[in-house]
């Protein structure tokens, strides 16, 4: 098991979670390999965000375990290795007086540590992160004065600023226009190839996603499918439709929808 864990970024082992008496996750078990780019899909309310929160230690499952980079979650300490953009990132207090630069710098706080301050090198990192999402010209604007898509890019920059080994994004392109979301997916692909970053992307864009991800997992309280993208595509649309409970067209953005 220990050997096995070396190549695994996230291991979820027989995890069950309920809010009160409402079952949200049941016996979820999966391994996410280092260097993979996983698309996590499932209908609304299927427990995707909850699973992500359990993986990040923001929610405590009633049963089961999570291991990050081989370490049991309650012993895991390298939180700066992990970047996270939450689904509700765009529902923050928009009147909050913080500049884009200040928001991105929060991503470094885990690394900088208690009682210490951002150094010049940290500030350079913040600029780089803003540049990587094309937002450097908005650095000194208040976050609330940016458009929804621009805000989302700032949150992505915040997740990237600490050079994470694992990046988890919960529906990051909601509210982002098609062109930006495409360039965003390209950015993710680049990060994945160049930095050998492990990525987990929660999304409803089943078609677009399959052009970028290496693996797909379908969740609806339980894991219904987990395999590489080719297997997912050949597993035929009936499976996916059955899983979503209604008919789904898998559409690629270079195709016409039938």
């Amino acid at each position, binding site marked *: 098991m220990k050997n096995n864990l070396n190549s695994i970024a996230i291991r979820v082992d027989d995890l069950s979670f309920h809010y009160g008496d409402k079952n949200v996750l049941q016996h979820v078990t999966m391994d996410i390999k280092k260097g993979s780019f996983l698309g996590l899909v499932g209908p609304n309310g299927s427990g995707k965000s909850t699973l992500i929160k359990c993986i*990040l*230690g*923001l929610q405590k499952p009633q049963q089961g375990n999570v291991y990050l980079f081989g370490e049991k979650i309650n012993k895991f*300490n390298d*939180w*700066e290795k*992990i970047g*996270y953009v*939450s689904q509700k*990132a765009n529902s*923050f*207090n928009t*009147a*909050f*007086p*913080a*500049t884009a*630069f*200040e*928001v991105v710098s*929060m*991503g470094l*706080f*885990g690394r*900088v540590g*208690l*009682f210490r*301050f951002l150094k010049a090198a940290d500030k350079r990192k913040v600029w780089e992160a803003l540049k990587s999402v094309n937002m450097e010209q908005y650095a*000194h*604007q*208040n976050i609330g004065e940016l458009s929804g898509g621009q805000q989302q890019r700032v949150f992505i920059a*915040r997740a990237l600023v600490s050079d994470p080994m694992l990046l988890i994004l919960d529906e990051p392109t909601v509210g982002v226009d098609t062109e930006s979301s495409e360039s965003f997916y390209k950015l993710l692909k680049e990060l994945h190839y160049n930095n050998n970053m492990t990525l987990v992307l929660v999304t409803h864009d089943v078609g677009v996603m399959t052009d970028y991800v290496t693996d797909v997992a379908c969740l609806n309280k339980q894991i219904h499918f987990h395999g590489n993208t080719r297997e997912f595509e050949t597993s035929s649309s009936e499976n996916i439709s059955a899983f979503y409970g209604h008919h789904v067209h898998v559409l690629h953005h270079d195709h016409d929808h039938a």
Partner: protein
Amino acid sequence: MLPFLKYEFLQNAFLTGIMVGLLAPVLGVFIVVRRQALIADALSHITLAGIAANLLLGKWSSFFATANPIYLGMAFSVGGAIFIEQLRKVYKHYEELAIPIIMSAGIGLSVIFISMADGFNTDLFNYLFGSIIAVKQSDVWTVFAILIVVLLFVFFMYKELFVLSFDEEQGRLSGIRSNWILVAFMAMTALVIAASMKIVGILLVSALMTLPVAASIRIAKGFKQAIWLSVLFGEVAVISGMFLSYYLDLASGGTIVLCLVVILFLCISYKKFTGSRKVGHL
């Protein structure tokens, strides 16, 4: 030197006012962005209960009769602050309920203590509305100690307070132990509220914490700027309010708060004016 500072009691008031004018807005920024502006009101009323308790105990015990009531007020206030943080956890989905609970408990206790102590006296009146002539030397030192503690806390915990105010989840992900920082922050707030009472009065403490911030976030770019501007507005209001209060013989709390209202009004119209000019240029 300014002529009105030749009296010692006015020096005390002036020094305390300057310290409070810095402290209240600094903490106020975090309170306002966390959408807890009413917490200051809840804590000031629980402080009043502490002060009333001291007046009551003073009837029977010479220790309390000679003690500065501000200390028991602080003890009540800090206790109330910690209690609010706990209540917020009990009522996870109705966090704001903690505030009226503490506030009404504070008023209830105050009324009982005051009636048991045979009603109002001028002392109590000074605490309610603020009176610069009631500031003692020991108040100055107490507020100075609070100033040092709070400024050190905010200076070293700035990152943590900032990220917890913006996005608690991100804070926890950065490994920040949110619980003790938030409890410590509430305790600091309680101390500052008790410290500000003599100058602005219990009923107006929350104004000194929130109005400068309400003005600054209209025009500030970024969080640091919001803090600096809030402090600037707080100081301008406290200093000009104390002058007016002395020369026109008015209650200091009222003049300070009215100065804050004027600043707030100016900031709102400045924003409107510059905003509409931009549209005009387009």
